[in-house]
């Protein structure tokens, strides 16, 4: 039952290919009593070796569902179509047992909540050793030694003792590092990290991100970093893909997306982010409203109802991802050209005013509250 060997069908090496992972026109629908939920509506991206791709978007934008679809871990009622190519194989067509050979061995995953990610009844070391023995024919003792090594690598102190601890004896940050150790146990080619720091304290987040960076460098794996925290992406990602309502709305290098956003939604996200690197006091300019329901999406751009730039065409035609003024930088907006040089505060307005504070009392220019 344990330690299935990868015999016979060894997935082809990906080293001679340009990309380790190619996702093409991925669609995920969930039938519900209220209708079809179109969670992912055509997502395509490529991932080069050692590249870090950040996928950002708010809750319900389809970023987690898309990555679970890549791993084949969606619930049975999900309808998935499109292609997920790893090497020459389309993972979407594979059976559960064929997929198991890729999971952990070639593509590993780290989940959001470290408090519930580990099985409470087995020791941390046992669970890491299990991941190793699922793909390698080694003894339990050798696997446990490797587990100690991995725990040390991700920064667990006294790893040789800690390996025998149960998950409840670990703190949240330590558990997430144990999950990272699990993920890199078989030197995967791709690590998918689904909101790896969201459930953690801010101080612990930095440590876990550092563990993640070490893990990535040691294994040479490419990474998909899913988060709604632009700050996390800014420090880690080479390229960024912004998702909204199940579709990518902007793709580019981290610099493209952060310094030259060409989609009002991205601009709005940036304006909602407190910045310490820009001097002076400035109010946040959040995006008003909430994301649309993914059941019976109206025609047109799904962001149009919240977009300060919307024109009649936005409610009729959904824009496709199109090249912008920078090569490789794509945005899905009819008016992306007119966003050149626009700052978030030019487009979005603060929703609250703090001119009741004494030092701001004279600030009569504070904009009115917009309902």
């Amino acid at each position, binding site marked *: *039952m344990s330690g299935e060997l990868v015999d016979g069908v060894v997935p082809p090496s990906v080293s001679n290919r340009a990309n380790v992972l190619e996702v093409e026109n991925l669609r995920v629908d969930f039938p519900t009593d209220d209708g079809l939920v179109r969670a992912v509506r055509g997502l395509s991206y490529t991932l080069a070796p050692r590249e870090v791709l950040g996928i950002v978007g708010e809750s319900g934008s389809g970023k987690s569902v898309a990555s679970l679809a890549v791993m084949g871990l969606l619930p049975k009622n999900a309808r998935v179509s499109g292609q997920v190519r790893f090497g020459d194989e389309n993972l979407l067509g594979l059976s*559960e047992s064929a997929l*198991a050979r890729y999971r952990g061995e070639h593509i*590993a995953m780290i*989940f959001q909540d470290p408090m*519930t990610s580990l099985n*409470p009844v087995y020791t941390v070391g046992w669970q890491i050793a299990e991941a190793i023995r699922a793909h390698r024919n080694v003894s339990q003792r050798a696997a446990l030694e490797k587990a100690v090594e991995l725990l040390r690598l991700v920064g667990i102190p006294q790893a040789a003792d800690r390996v025998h601890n149960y998950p409840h004896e670990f703190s949240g940050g330590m558990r997430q590092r144990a999950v990272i150790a699990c993920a890199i146990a078989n030197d995967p080619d791709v690590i998918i990290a689904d909101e790896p720091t969201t459930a953690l304290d801010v101080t612990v987040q930095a440590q876990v991100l550092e563990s993640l960076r070490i893990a990535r460098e040691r294994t040479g794996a490419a990474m998909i970093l899913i988060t709604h925290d632009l700050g996390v992406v800014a420090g880690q990602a080479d390229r960024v893909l912004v998702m909204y309502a199940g579709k990518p709305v902007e793709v580019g290098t981290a610099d493209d997306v952060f310094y030259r956003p060409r989609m009002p939604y991205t601009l709005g996200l940036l304006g909602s982010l407190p910045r310490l690197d820009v001097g002076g006091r400035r109010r946040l300019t959040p995006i008003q409203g909430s994301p649309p329901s993914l059941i019976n999406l109206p025609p047109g751009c799904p962001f149009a109802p919240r977009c300060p730039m919307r024109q009649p065409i936005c409610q009729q035609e959904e824009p496709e991802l199109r090249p912008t003024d920078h090569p490789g930088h794509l945005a899905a907006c009819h008016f992306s050209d007119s966003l050149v040089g626009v700052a978030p505060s030019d487009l979005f307005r603060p929703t609250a005013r703090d001119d009741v504070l004494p030092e701001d009392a004279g600030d009569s220019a504070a904009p009115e509250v917009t309902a």
Partner: protein
Amino acid sequence: MLAYTIRRLLVAIPLLIVSTFVVFLLVTFSGDPLANLRTKQPPPSPQVIANYRHMLRLDQPVLVRYWHWVTGLLHGDFGPSVQGGGTLDIGHALFQRILVSLRLVIAAIIIAMILAVIVGTISAVRQYSIADYVFTFTGFLFLSLPVFWFALLLKEGAIWLNNHIGTGFKTLGESSPIVGPGFGSHLVDALEHLVLPTITLALTAYAAWSRFNRSSMLEVLGSDYVRLARAKGLSRSRVLIRHALRTALIPFVTVTALDIAALLSQTIITETVFQWRGMGDFLFTAIRALDVYAVLAWLLFAAIIVIVANLIADLLYAVLDPRIRYD
């Protein structure tokens, strides 16, 4: 854990004392133990009644009687009995009956647990499949059938089959009056008599337990750690058994352990239908004979079973779940 077990057993002593006292009072004030004797025809002489009064210590205050009973228990004396002309050894008789009933209870528990785990797991893994609907339907069917009725149904069905097809179901008693020589034939005879009562009891217990295991499994199957186990590339059977079932068994085992005490009451009914000379028959006979000390002995045993079942449930919980530690 050993220290905890000892501590729990020590706590059980005052618990037993309180329960025996309450039970003693309830039984004492529930009626006149000599009522049968007084209404006998022809009426026994006042001297006979006086003798019985003295034997049952009815001429002493209640608290003194209780004290005599409890101190007697410590010496293995369960008190005087009005049955068998006052010669019945309650402790010995009850012990024989417990052995008979235990066969039935243990067989039923083992079968019910195995069935419940298998069926609950299949129902959860294949949720909303035809198998799940069939198991759900039969589960609720057995759950809603009263034990006495289900037992009767089985018994009458078996008798009908015996008469029409010639099957050899044993529908009466826990053993045949005349059995061939040798241990083997006694064993076969006992097993044959076990079939119908065991089915009754096992299916009744299984119905509730399989539903419990199903929901317990469903919860675990949707958990993050099962998803992580799959993400590690483990085989499906390993994910299901080592991760999902292993963790789902924690609440399941504790609930079944607690249920064992409840199963006793259904054993009594089942035994009565199949006319076993087990604990159930002992209790009924004792109640009909107004044999207070026999009833008390039986209730004492039931109290011990409840206390032990609770202790087992707690200990199993600690064995199965590393997060639980008693010390």
